[in-house]
């Protein structure tokens, strides 16, 4: 009888111990799985941040390099060209006095070539560093860009915004939006064979939206990505947007052509007015 009682207790204790182990095992699996997921997420976040930092650094370097080239063009080549123009002017007076028509014609041709070169250097400098963007803001920079394009191409470019006074945003954000607009418009001109481009800039309390629509041949972004034809254009847009937590969406309007919409969270410029991005000052860019 005593043995039977002991057996009952032994069985009860053994079963309870086994059950406790089973409970512990279930709890351990849940805990360990959760911990591993958190760890994976942490590693993925670190990788993401690192890639973002790399991208940010690369874009910063690109802007710094653009500024350096613009500065060199203006300070060195620009100055030398201005001096050449002055010298040619003086020489032109001397040649004019001699009365040789042939010499005079060569002189005028040289003067016009130098003037043209100066204009080209100015244009390249302005293209490299959008000074209007830093001085006057995004709307003015876009308008200037459109004006220049319309001069050079047989294109109709319409620009509209949902606000008359577009509030100034952080330097990085404005530059990002400007470069994306540049890239999308250039893509439309190069690849879409379009005759009309619409640029719409919208801002609300949380987001800024930039829509570029053309009436060209249109494209399927997924197919382009799959076939590795995206090149630096579309990838560059996505990379720039990743840094400012933005997104881009491509659409094919029913009436034809293509439309790209970039959306970026609003980031108003800080209280102090940002340092003007002047191409003619040697400074490090911190975008």
């Amino acid at each position, binding site marked *: 009888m005593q043995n039977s009682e002991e057996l009952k207790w032994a069985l*009860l204790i053994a079963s309870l111990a086994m*059950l406790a182990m089973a409970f512990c095992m279930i709890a351990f699996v849940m805990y*360990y799985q959760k911990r591993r997921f958190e760890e994976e997420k942490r590693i993925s976040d670190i990788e993401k941040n690192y890639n973002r930092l790399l991208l940010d650094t690369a874009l910063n370097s690109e802007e710094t390099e653009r500024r350096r080239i613009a500065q060199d063009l203006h300070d060195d080549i620009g100055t030398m060209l201005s001096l050449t123009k002055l010298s040619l002017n003086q020489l032109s007076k001397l040649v004019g006095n001699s009365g040789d028509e042939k010499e005079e014609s060569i002189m005028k041709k040289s003067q016009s070539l130098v003037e043209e070169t100066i204009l080209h250097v100015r244009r390249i400098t302005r293209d490299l560093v959008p000074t209007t963007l830093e001085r006057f803001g995004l709307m003015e920079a876009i308008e200037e860009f459109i004006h220049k394009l319309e001069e050079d191409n047989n294109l109709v470019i319409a620009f509209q915004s949902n606000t008359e006074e577009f509030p100034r945003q952080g330097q990085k954000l404005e530059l990002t939006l400007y470069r994306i607009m540049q890239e999308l418009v250039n893509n439309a001109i190069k690849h879409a064979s379009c005759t009309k481009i619409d640029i719409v800039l919208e801002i609300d309390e949380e987001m800024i939206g930039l829509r570029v629509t053309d009436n060209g041949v249109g494209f399927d972004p997924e197919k382009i990505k799959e076939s590795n034809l995206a090149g630096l254009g579309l990838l560059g847009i996505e990379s720039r947007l990743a840094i400012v937590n933005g997104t881009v969406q491509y659409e094919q309007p029913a009436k034809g052509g293509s439309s790209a919409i970039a959306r970026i969270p609003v980031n108003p410029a800080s209280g102090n007015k940002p340092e003007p991005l002047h191409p003619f000052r040697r400074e490090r860019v911190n975008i």
Partner: protein
Amino acid sequence: MFDSHFAYIVNNPISSIAVFVTVLPLTLTIVRRAFVDQSLRLLFCYLLAKLVIDLAMLHLASNRTNNIIFYNLSIPLFYALLGGMFYFKFEGRSQRRFLIASIIGLFFFCAWDVVNSNQDLHNMREHRVVLYSKTVEGVLMILLILLYFYELIKSLQIPNLLTFPFFWICSGLLLYYSSLIFIAPVIHYAYTWNNTMDLGITEFIPSIFEIICALLFSVGIYHYSPKDYAKQ
């Protein structure tokens, strides 16, 4: 007509609840269309077989007839159905081979155990519970569950285990077989026609965990969604 059955249910409420609670996961399987998933289809078959066998055993028990033959025969059948669920969950060929071998092995082992535990097979009145088979089944099931848990952790495919049906099913099985593993061999000596051995509260532990297991099955099936079938 059912007086003896009612009397039996009233006298043995825990083991009776363990029989009828199977209806809950069965109904949920039909409502949630969980049988679309191959593993859950086998679980559905198990639940159906278990309900039929349990009801048959309850009927015989209430008519004071030895029903242990059903218990003995259900061991390889239940292991084949429950273990079979893991066949669709394991990705490794060696694990699948082990599983099939264990199902076949347990079938023969159980047959030997029935013969070994009963001197006269034709004497149904004195038929006794197998001595080792239930314990072996428990060990194999626990092994399969632990193997599956290991693969689950290693693969990191399920972000939230609490909404993953098969995790709840495995947890229920692990608890049930853990509660049974030490008691199973003793049942051979306790459940005889002229029972002289009283196990006390220990006797109810497997039934209690059978109920908990059915409830955990229900939670798992409740979390099943045919939309996520491909992901599972």
